[in-house]
């Protein structure tokens, strides 16, 4: 990952774009972009299974001097209503923020608010 002098890229990825990708393609896209130093906001987050695979893939990609992993925060899944469940609706992942762990740091998270900050420099100080 290279840190550019001209700022940090912050990309909002639409639900439409994410829905076009298979689960594998989505995870490859995310990790590829994050390794480039980009911070992504996914309109449609990852399922817990996808998050787990992302963590596993991240661990395989860690390069100690250049990529230390990801910072990922999202809200819990939306529970479908009783009527929606009758029609086969399942839990839906919600908006999720993912970025390189040396750039993005979570300050606080609760049910309604995710507070993060972008830190200059790379790695733990």
């Amino acid at each position, binding site marked *: 990952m290279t840190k550019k002098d001209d700022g940090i890229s912050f990309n909002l990825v639409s639900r439409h774009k994410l829905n076009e990708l298979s689960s594998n393609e989505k995870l490859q896209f995310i990790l590829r972009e994050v390794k480039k130093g980009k911070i992504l906001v996914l309109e449609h987050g990852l399922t817990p299974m996808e998050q787990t695979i992302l963590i596993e893939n991240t*661990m395989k990609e860690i390069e100690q001097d250049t990529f230390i992993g990801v910072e990922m925060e999202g809200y819990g899944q939306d529970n479908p209503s009783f009527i929606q469940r009758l029609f086969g609706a399942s839990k839906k992942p919600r908006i999720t923020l993912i970025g390189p762990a040396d750039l993005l740091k979570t300050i606080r998270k609760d049910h309604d608010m995710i507070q993060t900050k972008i830190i200059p420099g790379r790695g733990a100080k």
Partner: protein
Amino acid sequence: MGLFRKGTLSAILQRIFGKKHAKIGIYGPPNVGKTTLANRILRDWTGDIMGSVSEVPHETRRAKWKRNVRVENDGSSLLMDIVDTPGIATKVDFKEFMNTWGLTREEAKRRAKEATEGVIESIKWLEDIDGVLLVMDSTQDPFTQVNVTIIGNLEARNLPVLIAANKIDVEESSPATLKSAFPQHPVVPISALTGYNAENLYSTMVKHFSKKRRKKRR
């Protein structure tokens, strides 16, 4: 702590798990006290220990497995293989081991490399366990992505989860915060270090894992 005739115990265990050895994984982020809790359980029920503990994160970097641990409570019994898993994290920075914990560069890099392998191993183990004792640090914010991801994953697999709200011996601990964060799962406050409330944990383990398993088998 009840006594069972061999045939009766076997029948109860069969009803609970459908097999004699249920694997219970001890999961959680690094440094929440997973191995301390594993040691507590083993010391109380087998007289053995699982592994070494340290303040430095990622002390457990390979899963450890203890077979045939029988926990008894009030006439019921649970026979388990306990798997103590490495802490799950989304990042591993060798510089943190150097700057915060004073490891040499070589030690820090080796520890970080092994830690990443440990996270992968923990995730692989999810395929092969029957229930999870999820350890959280009750002095910390419970809404970490690792906690949320692990719980979501286990719910998707329909695996029974019992949350151990650890470190209640520390003054700033708040197990009530954990309970309100994850109301869908039983939360037992405990100090793995001192053993405080361990009896409550054991009784909840026997009840919860048995109940969930019976429900799943219907």
